[in-house]
């Protein structure tokens, strides 16, 4: 399985923010500028998360997407926030998203979620599942109501697996903290045919290398820590043959995607 590093941009009230445990938010700046940086640094993928849209039933933030696309980024872009139906999803793809991530729609309106998958193809769809640990068991988390939900049953995701390509699991309680992603969250999913993206409290190379040893983890997602250092991802992942092959066109001294 290929492994990749996803740069997350969390949006609140139109601004990119540092998010801490889904509760505290500190401003970082304009989302399109951060997207431009991630593109310049040649991250593997960018995930834009607008946390207001589902909560306020506002639909996707097309204006935000247009601002980011206007920067002509050439890094794959995934969007999460406010998708309600196939029309929203098609409009997002048409506006410049390459993939769509959805979370609560799979629970609230699974028919619409599966229709999106049917039309766009499951490779274009990522399912997001916030998780918490309660009494040593992994439970879901409903961020709209700020409560933990039922114990996670991985088989229920496998049953729906034809509807999405990857499952992004979010460590709610460690999100925004340093080097703290809980390995316990992965345990229930071992042995199941699911491709996982891990997010929340992932900040070190040792941690990422350890996660990538898990056969079913296809990506790790990092948000806050990318914003405080220049090209931090170069220190976070060990370069592979693929990373080197991405540079060959313009030589080893290439400085980023914008050199062309």
């Amino acid at each position, binding site marked *: 399985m290929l492994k990749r590093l996803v740069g997350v941009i969390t949006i609140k009230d139109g601004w990119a923010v540092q998010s801490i445990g889904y509760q505290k938010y500190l401003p970082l700046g304009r989302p399109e500028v951060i997207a431009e940086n991630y593109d310049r640094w040649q991250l593997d993928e960018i995930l834009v998360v607008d946390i207001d849209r589902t909560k306020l039933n506002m639909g996707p933030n097309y204006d935000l997407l247009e601002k980011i696309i206007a920067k002509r980024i050439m890094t794959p872009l995934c969007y999460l926030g406010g998708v309600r139906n196939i029309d929203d999803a098609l409009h997002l793809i*048409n506006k410049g*998203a390459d993939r769509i991530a959805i979370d609560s729609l799979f629970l609230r309106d699974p028919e619409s979620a599966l229709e999106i998958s049917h039309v766009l193809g499951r490779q274009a769809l990522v399912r997001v599942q916030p998780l918490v640990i309660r009494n040593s068991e992994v439970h879901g988390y409903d961020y709209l109501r700020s409560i933990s939900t039922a114990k996670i049953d991985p088989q229920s995701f496998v049953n729906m697996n*034809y509807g999405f390509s990857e499952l992004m699991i979010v460590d709610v309680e460690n999100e925004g903290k340093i080097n703290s992603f809980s390995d316990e969250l992965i345990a229930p999913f071992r042995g199941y*045919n699911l491709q996982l993206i891990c997010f929340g409290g992932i900040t070190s190379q040792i941690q990422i290398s350890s996660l990538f040893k898990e056969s079913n983890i296809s*990506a790790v997602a990092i948000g806050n820590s990318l914003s405080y250092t220049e090209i931090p991802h170069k220190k976070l992942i060990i370069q592979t043959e693929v990373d080197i092959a991405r540079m060959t066109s313009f030589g080893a001294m290439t400085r980023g995607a914008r050199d062309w």
Partner: protein
Amino acid sequence: MKTVGILDYGVGNIASLKGALEGLGYKVLIGATETSLSKVTTIFLPGVGSFPFAMDNLRQLGMDKFLRIRFEAQDVEVIGICLGMQLFFEHSEEGDCEGLGLIEGKVKRFAGRECHVGWNIVRPSENSILSKNSGYYFNHSYYVECSSKVTLASSNYQTEFPVLVKENRFHGIQFHPEKSQNTGAQLLKTLIGA
């Protein structure tokens, strides 16, 4: 400044491709009819969607016939990306659906319903427009099986499969050059020309 066309048939990542092409210095014309694309010499067939949905849309627009005529006439370059490439072939397991049938070959599903997502190495065949191994971004759950005669480059995920094909003046690209940063930009410039 050269103008290139994008065929908008309702399932492509149009804005994403348009932004990348404009960033490379090309003018971009988006159209869904033969008339609207009549003045360009390169047409992109993008693709983020399912095979049956895409074929239905092409037929409803009458652009399946348009593409077949262009393929035989060899009067325009057509570049199919991802699903756009898969549509060139005879049949897809996705929805058990007939394709455009321009190039001999079939579209098959990866074993275990896995998705090939991320950056992977592309290896050129002999006489390929690529000169060496390069890294490109992939996102697909089906792949093409076709003759090595039309294959210009291949990659490996579960199996070796073609990722860059050419017949007449139709190029098919399984990965996303518009999302492959430096290497993708260079390939697009090579394919389109000045």
